[in-house]
């Protein structure tokens, strides 16, 4: 079983539209949506939830007013400035328990947090593992790890060939959690200076964690000079640009109808995405 994770650095370059299409093209796979704070893949795959699970993660401090003698020690030692006026701001609290350990009056307890939910669903394209982090919650990296771990066990149990993972934007905690240990990263970029800047950083994360990468330039005809520059940059880094997809409104039209673009339109864009998946599966198979 092999896992490919789709990343981009910059958001909105087309990760989810491409993963949705892979869902329709690829055989023998499980899908994982690791963009747990703004998951969108379900909007293309119309899943039926088979199992909903609570995600309990982290803790938050709670001060018992009756026991508190207002000595102020907790406020002084908290590195996150989460306590003022002898009250804990649950959003700033990182759940480290430091205050709870030092309180001379035993007035502080730690309360577990329900930080989100994760789901095992069935779609017409195969199983999907996805999640919803509670709004303004922490620990997205742990939730991502949970989604991937469950996708992996489904792939093992059902003897599936591929795990196709839709990753989050950025380069921080949930990206690292989506990437580490994957067999291949597909980096979807666009020919804008922002997209190029962000591609360089996310490629750095792939190097850092030793995951080989392929690049897809989406909307390449927005700026063909930039698209060529991306190709030159990638070739200087020894990274292959495996696909260039033109701007086409069929992406949005398909999305409005809740369909993967390859099912909505059988045109050049669909064929290009088909070739992209072929390149990925060849690379994964050859490892």
């Amino acid at each position, binding site marked *: 079983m092999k896992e490919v994770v789709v990343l*981009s*650095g*910059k*958001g*909105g*370059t087309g990760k*989810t539209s491409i993963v949705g299409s892979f869902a329709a093209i690829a055989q023998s796979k499980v899908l994982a949506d690791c963009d747990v*704070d*703004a998951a*969108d893949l379900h*909007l293309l795959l119309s899943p039926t939830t088979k199992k909903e699970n609570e995600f309990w993660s982290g*803790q938050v401090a709670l001060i018992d007013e009756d026991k508190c003698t207002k000595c102020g020690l907790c406020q002084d*030692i908290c*590195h*996150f400035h989460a306590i003022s006026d002898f009250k804990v701001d649950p*959003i700033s609290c*990182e*759940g*480290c*328990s*430091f205050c709870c*350990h*030092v309180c001379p009056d035993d007035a502080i307890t730690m309360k577990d947090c329900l930080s989100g939910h994760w789901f095992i669903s069935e779609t017409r394209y195969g199983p999907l593992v996805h999640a919803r*982090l509670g*709004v*303004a*919650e*922490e620990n*997205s*990296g742990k939730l991502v790890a949970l989604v991937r771990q469950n996708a992996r066990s489904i792939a093992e149990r059902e003897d599936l060939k591929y795990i196709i993972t839709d990753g*989050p*934007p*950025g*380069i*921080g*905690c*949930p*990206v*690292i*959690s989506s990437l580490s240990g994957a067999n291949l990263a597909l980096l979807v970029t*666009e020919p*804008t*200076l*922002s997209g190029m*800047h*962000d591609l360089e*950083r*996310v490629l*750095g*994360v792939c190097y*850092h*964690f030793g995951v080989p990468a392929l690049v897809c330039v989406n909307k390449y005809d*927005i*700026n063909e000079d*930039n698209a060529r520059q991306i190709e030159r940059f990638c070739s200087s880094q020894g990274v292959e640009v495996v696909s260039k997809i033109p701007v086409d*409104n069929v992406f*949005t039209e398909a*999305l*409005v109808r*809740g369909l993967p673009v390859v099912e909505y339109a059988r045109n050049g864009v669909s064929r290009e995405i088909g070739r992209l998946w072929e390149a990925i599966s060849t690379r994964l198979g050859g490892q």
Partner: protein
Amino acid sequence: MIISVASGKGGTGKTLVATSLALSLEGQVQLLDCDVEEPNDHVFLKPNFTKRESVYVPIPKVDEEKCTHCGKCAEVCAYNAIAAMKKKVLVFPELCHGCGACSYLCPEEAISEVGKEVGVVEIGHSASIQFAHGKLNVGEAMAPPVIRKVKEGINHEGAVIIDVSPGTSCPVVESIRGSDFCLLVTEPTPFGLNDLILAVEVVRKLEIPCGLILNRAGVGDRKVEEYCLKENIPVLLTIPLDTRIAGYYSRGIPLVEGIPQWRGHFLELFDRVRGMAISQAG
């Protein structure tokens, strides 16, 4: 007045809005790029940086001479960042949140806190705009300490514009908290709407008034506008789908420099936001 620019979904036009708004305003303006994972505002403003500061998080350093291997540090660490073996203490810096509990609670005073660089903040200016951004080091996981450092430089005297990362979790909360108003930028598609709803939940939880900027209007459907009407969220600016705008963006040219007529729209936007922030605060 602090205005943050957020979105939920990535790639909807936060950077376009934040840079053009900053460039349109007269008087004292500060632009803070808090998307420290993938900062982009500098690509458009090409600021002159005059100051560069590292951002450190404190991580434990164990003095093996003093350590009696009692295991207290590992016991109190909520993040499993310390493992106390019989003869050695192992620290896993990438798991450490820098809370300081281990060092304070060590009965032998064998643990000190040493700074580990997780990113940098660069400060400068672009014409009359005061500019700062944070950059998380590649391979580091925790953006909030870098965001906090960028926001330490907030100058409350003029207009402050904060560019926020996509999503709804801790980096977004860290960036937008303390704002007087939050501009939510989205596009009229099912993805844009789904993530807008999540972003609205975040700003409402933080009790920050918000308004919508609809970008690439004309594609997709009308469900974002229907949602805003139902939820009483004002649509403050509509930017059409236009290949010229996309072209300027691709070359790193701010919208108000490519098409100067947009300056007026951004000034109007700012006036409306100021009016709404004041009436909310009152």
